[in-house]
């Protein structure tokens, strides 16, 4: 259902979509029944000459069961919804599968910057690759992201992955995703972060392992490694998103 509106490109995107459908079916049923009963009553008991109104307190047993029975059915439906909802949450947010790769995501007014391991495969070494506005990842690989903010609250959202996590200044929040479809997807900021909020766009590029290796090679020459070791400076304005920081600063 959701995929009609937006591609699903991560392993848990479908889980979210199934949960969405489950809820839609259950609450849709109740909504239609309740609306139908209401309209039927309005029609059936419309004012007619010579038909007096009935005196019903709604406090006797045989009357209240019309409320209590649906009421227990609603509780059952709530349970049917809440159990998978929590399981889903548990699997997406609470437990992290072991990481194949780790990236650091840094939010600031108004750009996304990313830091990932260079050819040596270790984060926080001289050959790390830093990018602004563009994150390259391998398909079918479990990534942990370590999310930080330099200034205000932002929110790291990749709709195609059904992923969202606020970035808080002063905290590093770790989450995970595993992309399962090659392509380019949007990264949004979904928390009001000031006047450039609507400009805080990014792209995530899911590549085959071969393409990713090639990209890694292109962007990890020794010269680049040296300049990447320069302490973090303010990244480029959003207009240049997609550019490699190191390239932009010779």
């Amino acid at each position, binding site marked *: 259902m959701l995929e009609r509106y*937006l591609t699903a490109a991560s392993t848990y995107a479908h*889980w979210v979509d199934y949960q969405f459908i489950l809820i839609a079916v259950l609450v849709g049923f109740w909504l239609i029944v309740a609306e139908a009963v209401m309209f039927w009553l309005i029609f059936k008991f419309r004012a007619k000459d010579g038909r007096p109104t009935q005196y019903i307190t709604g406090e006797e047993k045989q009357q209240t069961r019309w409320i209590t029975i649906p009421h227990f059915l*609603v509780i059952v439906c709530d349970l049917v*919804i809440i159990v998978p909802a929590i399981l*889903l949450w548990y699997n997406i947010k609470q437990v992290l599968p072991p990481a194949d790769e780790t990236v650091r995501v840094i939010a600031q007014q108004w750009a996304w910057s990313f830091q990932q391991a260079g050819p040596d495969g270790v984060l926080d070494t001289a050959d790390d690759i830093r990018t602004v506005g563009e994150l390259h990842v391998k398909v079918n690989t479990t990534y942990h992201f370590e999310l930080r903010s330099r200034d205000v609250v932002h929110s790291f959202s990749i709709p195609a992955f059904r992923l969202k996590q606020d970035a808080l*200044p002063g905290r590093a929040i770790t989450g995970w995703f595993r992309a399962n479809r090659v392509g380019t997807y949007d990264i949004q900021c*979904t928390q009001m972060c000031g006047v450039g909020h609507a400009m805080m766009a990014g792209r995530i590029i899911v590549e085959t392992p071969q393409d990713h290796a090639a990209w890694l090679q292109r962007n990890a020459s020794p010269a680049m490694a040296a300049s990447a070791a320069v302490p973090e400076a303010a990244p480029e304005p959003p207009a240049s998103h997609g550019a490699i920081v190191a390239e932009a600063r010779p």
Partner: protein
Amino acid sequence: MSEHAAPGIFERYFFSTDHKIIAMQYLFTGMGMAMIGGFFAYVFRMQLGFPNQNVPGYGIVTAGKYNALVTMHGSIMIFWVAMPVLIAAFGNFLIPLMVGCDDMAFPRINRLSYQIFLLSALVLLSSFLVKGGPFGGAWTAYPPLSASGAYNLTPVGATLWLVAVALEFVAFLLGGINFIVTTMNSRAPGMKMYDIPLVVWMIVLASVIFMASVGPLIAGAIMLLFDQTMSTGFYDPTRGGDPLLWQHLFWFFGHPEVYVVLLPAMGIVAEVIAVFARKKVFGYKTVLYTTWAVGFLSFVVWAHHQFVAGIDPRMANIFSVTTLLISVPITEMVFLYIATLYGGSIRLDTPMLWALAFIGEFMIGGVTGIFLGSSGTDIYLHDTYFVIAHFHYTFVPIAIIATFAGLTFWYPKMFGHMLNETLGKIHFWGTIVTFNVIFIPLFITGTAGDQRRVYSYAQFAEQARPALQHLRTTSTIALLFMLAFQFIFLFNFIWSFRHGKTAGANPWRSATLEWTVPSPPPHGNFAQLPTVYRGPYEYGLPGYADDFVPQNVPDLAISIAGETD
């Protein structure tokens, strides 16, 4: 007031302590603010529907202006429209009349409450005149964005917003004290707890919820004010503060606030349905108990606004359960209202249309909340237009539909004249149909990933698809129609002041006490204070000639036809 010469206009309107005059002042201030908030909605929806075009009557909407407009729209509609109209206007007008006393328990505090409220509105509006313009950091005002002018670029506007909100809270605390004390202490002799009309109960309970939840936010607001103006670091992580603290304090108030405005709306709808279905409210006591349950549960659901905010993920499980739990009493309340229709003799006058529409539309708002309260799906839907559509399906029924139900129902009592029925029905259908056409497309754009509070989707390839833009444009066009239909109401409202049919004391043949006094009620309300003999919804009581028995009629009076006109 004074027993000397007739009070002058100034004294009569600016310092009157009559609850009805204060109610009217709250009502008209709220309606004025609603026009401002509606105008803002028009401006930013135009930007979304027709991006980067000149908006007639406003101009080009830049990113900064857009942020300010959505922030002010949200703040105004909740704090300066829903609260003053639903709680203060109806509460002030109805409580003394419905419990059978001459005025509020503390008339001067009541006056002070409106005075502070007016001041808060003026402070908010003054932020449009200061350097940097009004605050644009969303109505939730998350720090550090709201705490530092360097981040939000509206240093003065942010402080004015905060001061205005704090003053508004003071006003409603004072008002709430009055509602609670008046209802508990000033009831007519014979009116027992279960004889109090539901709308009065609901306004009182809303006041209790408001009082119990607002304290932490006031504390939070003062800390934020200090962060803004005195460089303290309560929310600044580099100096040991924590931005999440504000979010907890804000939503600890913010979610109960939803029920603070919902309950009076539910109360109004209960009154209207009972009168126009000629039915006793089905399970009066159960309605009351579910209200208490809702009130209590509303204090333990706040973090469902923060599932993905960086709180401990284990906490989301608890709040997801409580959030789904609160659906149970609310569902039960709605079922009870629907059950009230059974066996009735339903007349579809304009107030009844509004009341029934409230139930029909509010149910959509309720069920879509399940998608968001269930933590797993909220990961995706959080801060999308799905949320916007969901809460407008709750807030529009509350602040617009139920308010119109109440206004059209009590207009004869307030002004002594009937509203025009034909214009009322045109206005009703025009508003309801367009309302759905505005927000159903937004459910879809939200499901497709449209994030909130951005003035342009040009940067986002997935959102910039033409299909989604068509939906946004549809929504905007529907809004234009909806706003246009409001002028019909405005005309009807003003025209009927003088030209509406004379109402008489009890045009709807209602059983509660406010209909036993002339319309509009004189100063002091009751020529002789009433005595209450029965509950508020005795319609179709067997053994009586008429199909309703007013609360103040003794059991022995079988024929009451002569007394009600």
